[in-house]
């Protein structure tokens, strides 16, 4: 089954151009971050690590990195546990309205971020959570948890739920059944969800802008502030490091995907 040669050439050309468009800005940032001067020009006139040095020695960037990782780790833990539990529950239960429940739980994905952020700011202020790291973790968890839920639900599709029901009905304590039977079988899905959650939290900006306290800068927030105030290649060094993180996430998620497909297709 083949396309017309001319059509195929046209399609491949378009695809190459689009993929180049997608990759070029990021590659440019990586190259520019090694610029020896403040001038950001291509091609670069030399190579220097001074902006990385600046990143690692400037207190605010280090602090922002620390905040970002603290929040991302806490968010990942919370989202992974809650999301996995709920996904197993959804798979186990036999009741009506499951689809509605899933829609409800994944609603944060399709709600405009700015509305979510504004609403959280209103409500968390009343609850005393605005301006605290706890509030920030809660906010990030809300937008990260649907990814965990969906990743684990997808893996569970391939897992024989009868096995679990059997274990549960044979008198095995339910938590033992879940921990010994389910989790070992679906861990690639759980891990993939966790990677999603971590990446989402690390990337999150708008909710952070509203919910974070004045001193609580995360990497995206610090980048945004720096871009608006004073554009230096240090921002590009930060961007490159974040880009590196995203490559790691991609590798991890692909590895997990391969693992789970191999598992389900023996």
């Amino acid at each position: 089954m083949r396309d017309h040669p001319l059509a195929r050439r046209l399609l491949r050309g378009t695809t190459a151009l689009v993929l180049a468009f997608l990759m070029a800005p990021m590659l440019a940032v990586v190259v520019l971050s090694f610029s020896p001067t403040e001038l950001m020009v291509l091609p670069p006139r030399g190579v220097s690590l001074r902006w990385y040095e600046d990143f690692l020695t400037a207190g605010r960037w280090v602090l922002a990195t620390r905040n970002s990782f603290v929040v991302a780790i806490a968010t990942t833990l919370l989202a992974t546990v809650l999301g996995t539990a709920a996904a197993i529950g959804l798979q186990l239960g036999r009741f009506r309205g499951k689809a509605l429940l899933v829609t409800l739980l994944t609603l944060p994905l399709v709600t405009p971020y700015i509305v979510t952020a504004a609403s959280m700011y209103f409500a968390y202020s009343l609850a005393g959570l605005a301006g605290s790291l706890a509030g920030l973790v809660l906010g990030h968890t809300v937008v990260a948890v649907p990814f965990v839920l969906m990743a684990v639900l997808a893996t569970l599709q391939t897992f024989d739920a009868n096995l679990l029901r059997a274990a549960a009905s044979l008198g095995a304590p339910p938590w033992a059944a879940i921990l010994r039977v389910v989790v070992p079988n679906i861990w690639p899905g759980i891990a993939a969800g966790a990677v999603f959650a971590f990446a989402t939290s690390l990337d999150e900006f708008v909710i952070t802008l509203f919910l974070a306290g004045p001193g609580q800068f995360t990497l995206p927030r610090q980048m945004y502030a720096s871009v608006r105030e004073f554009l230096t290649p240090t921002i590009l060094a930060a961007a490159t490091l974040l880009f590196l993180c995203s490559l790691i996430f991609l590798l991890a998620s692909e590895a997990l995907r391969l693992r789970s497909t191999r598992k389900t297709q023996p």
Partner: protein
Amino acid sequence: MMRRLLAPFVALALGLCAVPALARDLTIVAGGGALQDHMRRTLFATFPGGPVVDTAYDYNVGPIRAMVAAGNVTWDVVMVEAPDLVRGCEDGIFERIDWSVVDRGKFMPGGATTCGAGAIGWGVSVFYDEARHPNGPSNFVEFFDTARFPGRRSMRRGARMTLEIALMGDGVAPADVYKVLATPQGQQRAFAALDRLRPHVTFWTGGQQPIELVNSGEVAYAVGFVGRVANGIRAGARYNLRWSTLLYAYDSWAVVRGSPNAAQGMRLIEHITSPAPLLELTRLWPINPVTQAVAENPDVRARNPLMMSNHTAGGLEIDTEFWLEHGPDLEQRFASWLNR
């Protein structure tokens, strides 16, 4: 099972919640930047009442309101703009200044209000690069005269200050600006003046932008913060700063309501507005203190020719009450104009 699984997270959440509740150092918040670095050394570090932590904010009062509403006050003393001070005082966002702790008599007229103690003045005025433009506009009528003074202009994106400038550019005397701007005809006139200038204007949103626009030559004449322009001049830039076009206002120190360190905060305000530490600060930075003894100190004035306090006589003080009343309306109208 659930309990065992959830226990670490409950503990984690509690741990995170508990952080702000811990006893903390007295916290003071200002606009940041190099000025705050100097304030830290001369004002905050010299406070005899104990350690002071300082942090920066962007003058948006939303977060302060949120923390007061939530009863989770993590800032004690804040530097605020005049309209935010007045509204915040009416709303009970700021504590009343304890004038038995802070000496009321040391401030310039208007520097001591119910909830605020005068901190420093700031202003905007026309400046340009003399190397590029030997003869630039010396007043707002000339700033609006694009035939005699061709080239791009830059002004702040927003109604406040821009509308006053537009009226003065249309020939209204500074003393009459707010009277005229309060009338529908006056507002019409201001926007009509802006209409004429619009093809030549680049609006800025951050204080560093006008400096960069003028440095790069993208803009010939800009209205920018005098403090930043003065620092540029001290660092060797050849700016002509037209003091006759000054619009200025004073920021104040206020104590956030419900601060557990309110009493200590009052003592800090008394310290950082007293002449001795402020005199030290004037050696490092050309500030515009509201403390009379320092603002009118002939030595300080002579030492800092670029100090705004030397030039306020010919300038226009921004009318706080006017902007509290007309701000929401005129800002929306400005946004509407900008988007047309």
